[in-house]
């Protein structure tokens, strides 16, 4: 009945966002380098039981404080040397990557979930609901993370689970702030009204219409927060209030090497460098994702 006027050939249609993103990703140096390092550390952490030459707790008191391979007395038997208890540093670093990354990632996921939900609900409903959400965010912002973590861990005996929970529940503020303001902008877009007019419930609009549009920004935030959490975990472990010994995390390995700082500096330099490189890589990677998914490039 109606004249068919839609005759655009498929070839001239705009490329899909995915293809645009891939094309941009391929020429983004920061994303590639950061991503490669992150991927490498992730693989090392995942494969720890198979690639670590020794167990993380395996002591060899006859080979205490062996020098790393690049020093005068070093050998390939312990490429990064051994610590004061004769434990292989390379193996502890490999297992430590596992602990450090697990804590940072799981805590970020907890924080992202809490923060995103608070931000979505506050931003979407507005009014009194938003006042409560804003109040929660302000309360959270007023809490000093390290101080609270120290206080809690001083009372309850430290464990990895406890650390994950504390960090997760103390770092959701940024997600809430970002999600809330983005939701406020998003809810005035016509597609939200269109969904409401098509009978969608508030829950549906929040989770299925608005949230998917915030995905890229939340992913970028997660990467940045993982980097921060790795540093916080290292700081807490260094203070002796993070993972309990003898569990290796990169922070606790630095703490272990502290006493021998002037005689065997590699015991601190190696894990310190590893943290520095990983955090830098994660930040490069996160910035890369932000650049690649930036909406202004989308047709």
């Amino acid at each position: 009945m109606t004249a068919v006027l839609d005759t655009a050939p498929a070839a001239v249609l705009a490329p899909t966002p995915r293809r645009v993103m891939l094309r941009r990703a391929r020429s983004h140096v920061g994303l590639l380098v950061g991503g490669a390092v992150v991927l490498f550390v992730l693989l090392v952490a995942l494969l720890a039981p198979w690639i670590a030459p020794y167990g993380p707790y395996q002591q060899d008191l006859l080979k205490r404080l062996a020098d790393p391979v690049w020093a005068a007395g070093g050998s390939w038997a312990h490429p990064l040397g051994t610590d004061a208890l004769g434990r292989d540093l390379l193996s502890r670093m490999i297992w430590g990557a596992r602990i450090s990354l697990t804590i940072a990632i799981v805590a970020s996921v907890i924080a992202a979930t809490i923060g995103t939900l608070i931000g979505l609900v506050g931003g979407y409903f507005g009014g009194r609901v938003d006042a409560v959400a804003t109040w929660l965010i302000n309360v959270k912002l007023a809490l000093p993370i390290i101080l609270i973590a120290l206080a809690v861990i001083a009372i309850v005996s430290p464990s990895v689970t406890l650390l994950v929970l504390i960090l997760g529940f103390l770092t959701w503020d940024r997600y809430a702030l970002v999600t809330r303001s983005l939701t406020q902008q998003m809810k005035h877009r016509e597609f939200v009204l269109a969904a409401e007019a098509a009978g969608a419930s508030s829950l549906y609009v929040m989770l299925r219409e608005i949230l998917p549009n915030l995905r890229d920004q939340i992913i970028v935030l997660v990467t940045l927060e993982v980097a921060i959490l790795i540093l916080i975990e290292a700081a807490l472990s260094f203070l002796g209030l993070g993972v309990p010994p003898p569990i290796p995390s990169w922070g606790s390995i630095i703490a272990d090497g502290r006493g021998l700082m002037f005689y065997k500096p590699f015991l601190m330099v190696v894990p310190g460098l590893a943290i520095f490189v990983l955090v830098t890589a994660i930040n490069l990677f996160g910035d890369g994702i932000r650049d690649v998914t930036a909406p202004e490039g989308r047709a």
Partner: protein
Amino acid sequence: MSAPWQGPPVLEAEGLSVTLDVPAGRLHAVSDIDLAVHAGETLCLVGESGCGKSMTALALMKLLPRRGKLAARRLTLEGRDLLPLGERAMNALRGERIGLISQDPMTALNPVYTIGNQLEEIHRRHRGGSRAAARERAEYLLSRVGIASPGMRLGQYPHQLSGGLRQRMLIAAALMCGPALLIADEPTTALDVTVQAEILRLFADLQREFRLALVLITHDLGVVARIGHQVAVMYGGRVVETGTVAEVFRAPHHPYTRGLMDCIPAPGARREARLGAIPGIVEPAIGERAGCGFRNRCVRAQPDCGVGDIHFRPLGTGHAYRCLLPPDAALARPRPVAEVPAS
């Protein structure tokens, strides 16, 4: 000329008012308007920006912003009273019995989902059933709204489509569950002129086929003349003139309607003839108001215009206008603004 619309109206609203509490006071966005639309009939709401057209559309679906308050003596859809219904019951009707086509096709589709996904979701929400059944309905409707290769289009994202195509998608989305009432808020404003004509023709076709009651909101009298049956001219939240399109266009009585008509460029008019304009701006409708809202811009205002409520003057055949001027006086004088020829 008025078509004999049989049966009870699909939508009936009486004394519909919308107020919004804003920092400056109480804003009367819509004041006491009456509407009725039958199956197969098009009611056009016409007026300039801020006259309450869009707010009326939202009020009919009970989708007002949170600060907005709805009041009405009567609001029924297919004989069912909407006033006492809660959010859940309204959600069951929205998209199912009432479809809304919103203003801007460029942003009314969610950018992260494919067209097919969005259309199917509406069908599954109200009708349940399999994805395949929903997809079949979507494909049928897309071909029905004039889209070639609907199968391919369903797999695409909104940004891959032109404005005209997106508007067709939105129309298809609104029709997914076969609603009785379609509310279209400025459906052609954001489109190219050539595409506008196609979309209007499409509306007329679909209305005939599906026996839709259509509430069309526009500021374009050309659109009204093309596809409207009934028209309600709104000014400052009130209906100032209402009647069949033929009657109102033949003999506009309210000074505001006459002013609007003078703003239409007539093909073949002398080049020197000045196009009409209505002086002044719309008064903000905050606080209690008395008299005619148009009096400050009206060339024929009298002292009495600011006193009390101005009531409708019926002219028979459903045509009525809200003005103190008696019918012959309203028509007699030369049109108020467009008489000045340039140089």
